[in-house]
């Protein structure tokens, strides 16, 4: 065991002492922000034909009319004389009869599915206390979501001001009011806080992606360096190849966790310095959801060990960086796939395709974290199908990882002493059977 920890310590120190470690701590969040926010900005494509919307106003103070009036300011992107949003109808339900709202929603849901309607907004009674309204559309729409959110918030601020007899210009108080939370939903589907769905899932998936790819490649390079510098033979005359491989995985994993730990610590400091006022409930809902965080850490560790083992495998059979590229591409792709599919998963988190994909071991960590994020289970109960699936996915992925470690260990011990020509697949299979 002593030797194992010596390797762990040395691998850890070698990485942490490098400047690139510090650079990674700073640049990764920046890059993370870029790749999460930029596509969202691009996704805000212009509105070229007027979009139909309806309002269910169960409040009875004319908020629906005021909202419709406020939307008239938005014009089409390529035609500044035509309004972007076209009101289909305002359904007034004074008194807010819940049954009437529900039956109306069924009708409007089908209108959305048949594309007769693009959005509908539900304003429930007592909106100024709940600070939330519902926006239903087929897919999450950032641009319209932001606009609807802002207009409703302003109207609510005005109503508050009017009812409070304070004589101030409306504009001067608008900036001080709370934003309402626009909950976005798919027709007939579950509701979910608007911004956190996509971004929350994306950030979690991205953290897994970045740490696994960057530390996996560090591991692969260190194996290749030890092969090329011919120090490998000295190492395996002191420790077993298995100890060496696992020592590297654990040592670099610790460095990886250090990096994430620093991000979390810095994040918490910024978070608390900003005060609780501005923290959106979606963010705190994720950060302080122990079920979600627990699964995230679990899947991060599984993903890291699984992919590091794959990278160790590649490092042991290659001699140059160039040779590794053929292997690194498919590995990176299998980690990228969930990011590409994320839009779909956000909208259809419980479809058969989403469930099946999230059970495949190589995809499970990122897919499952995305799905958990959407479902945001409050408590750990096996009755919850998402939690059940997450547990099954974790077990399958762990078993797969153990198998991967076993087979890689058998190849690693031979590959690390082979220089020059890259082995063919039949040769690699032969190594597995060697004594």
């Amino acid at each position, binding site marked *: 065991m*002593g030797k194992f920890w*010596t390797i762990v310590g040395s691998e850890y120190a*070698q990485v942490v002492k490098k400047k690139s470690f510090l650079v990674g701590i700073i640049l990764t969040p920046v890059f993370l922000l870029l790749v999460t926010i930029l596509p969202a900005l691009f996704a805000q494509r212009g509105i070229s034909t007027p979009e139909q919307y309806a309002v269910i106003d169960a409040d009875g103070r004319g908020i629906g009319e005021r909202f419709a009036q406020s939307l008239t300011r938005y014009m089409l992107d390529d035609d500044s004389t035509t309004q972007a949003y076209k009101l289909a109808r305002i359904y007034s339900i004074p008194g807010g009869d819940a049954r009437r709202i529900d039956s109306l929603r069924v009708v409007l849901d089908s209108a959305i599915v048949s594309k007769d309607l693009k959005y509908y907004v539900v304003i429930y009674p007592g909106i100024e206390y709940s600070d939330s309204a519902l926006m239903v559309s087929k897919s999450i729409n950032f641009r319209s979501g932001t606009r609807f959110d802002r207009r409703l918030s302003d109207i609510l601020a005005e109503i508050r001001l009017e009812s409070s007899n304070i004589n101030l210009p409306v504009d001067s108080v608008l900036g001080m009011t709370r934003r309402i939370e626009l909950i976005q939903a798919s027709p007939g589907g579950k509701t979910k806080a608007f911004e956190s769905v996509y971004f929350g899932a994306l950030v979690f998936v991205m953290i897994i992606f970045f740490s696994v790819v960057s530390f996996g490649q560090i591991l692969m390079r260190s194996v290749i360096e030890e092969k090329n*510098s*011919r*120090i490998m*033979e*000295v190492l395996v005359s*002191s420790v077993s190849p298995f100890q060496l491989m696992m020592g590297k995985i654990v040592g670099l994993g610790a460095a990886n966790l250090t990096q994430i730990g620093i991000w979390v610590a810095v994040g918490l400091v910024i978070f608390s310095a900003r005060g609780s006022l501005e923290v959106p409930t979606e963010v705190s809902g994720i950060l302080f959801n122990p079920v979600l965080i627990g699964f995230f850490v679990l899947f991060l560790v599984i993903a890291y060990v699984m992919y590091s083992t794959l990278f160790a495998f590649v490092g042991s059979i290659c001699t140059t960086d160039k040779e590794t590229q053929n292997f690194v591409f498919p590995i990176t792709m299998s980690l990228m796939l969930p990011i590409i599919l994320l839009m779909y998963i956000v909208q259809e988190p419980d479809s058969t395709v989403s469930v099946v994909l999230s059970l495949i071991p190589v995809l499970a960590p990122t897919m499952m974290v995305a799905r958990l994020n959407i479902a945001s289970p409050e408590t750990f109960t096996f009755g919850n199908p998402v939690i059940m699936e997450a547990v099954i996915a974790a077990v399958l992925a762990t078993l797969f990882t153990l198998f991967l470690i076993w087979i890689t260990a058998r190849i690693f011990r031979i590959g690390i002493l082979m220089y020059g020509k890259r082995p063919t697949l039949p040769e690699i299979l032969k190594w597995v059977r060697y*004594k």
Partner: protein
Amino acid sequence: MTEYLQLKGITKRYGATLAVDNLDLTIPKGRIYGMIGPNGAGKTTTIRMIMDIIAPDSGKILLDGKPTDDNFKNVVGYLPEERGLYKKMTLREVILYLGQLKQKPRKEIDARLDSWLKRMDLLEYKNRKVEQLSKGMQQKLQFITTLIHDPEIIILDELFSGLDPLNIELIKNVLLELKHEGRTILFSTHVMEQAEKLCDFICMIHRGRKVLDGALNDVKGKYGRNSVHLEIDGDGSFLDSLPGVKAVTRFTNYFELTLDDLSRSNDVLQAISSRVTVLRFERVTPSLYNIFITVAGGDKPDPAGEEVARG
């Protein structure tokens, strides 16, 4: 002779190639043991099997009569043929890391580090990075990392390959000193001339098989004393056709003549001195190289130990 490290019936096959064939070796304690043979003879494979880097297909490796276990790795100092170091680490870091991998406490290594660096003339580089060292310095550093944990057994694969002459002398002296301290040293080389000067016991390996082994003096005695070392001032091409000379082996600075009959060595000397100036004419035991030629039967490796095609 006390048996210390024993190999019994070791065999290793790579596909159709038989790299090591039913090899038995007995390495005595506190002696320098040389394993010699041309490149590709199976020396490195044998050493790797001793080090448990690769597993033999069959056969046993015993230390003091017991199969080698995990602790064996801690009592061995091993210098492989392919040598390298972490270029970005400092000398001290490299020595500490490799020493700790031999299960030695960090403090103990740190305490011993300076005297070794001083001995190898590297003390001033202690906190420099390995990449700043010259090749010769790196060789000395590798030698330190092999010995820093005070090993009982020292195994050196192709000991002399890549070493410059100054370092060869330095390392030879250290090895002789370690022998006097009772350490067991096993080295392999294809440079037989070098092996002859250093080892007490030898084993000749050819095509994966042991062709000869024993104490150096016994081996040499067995192959008679009909050899002569000859140093001349001038061209020695006539020697091949000289009557009374059976064979001529050319070394860098001298010839080794195998005579038909040693009692007629004076006739040979006269014949040579009538043509060129003789600087030295000495009756000797045959060189390991010539013994090797005799036992290996005509497969001639280059006497100076130059690269021979790997088989």
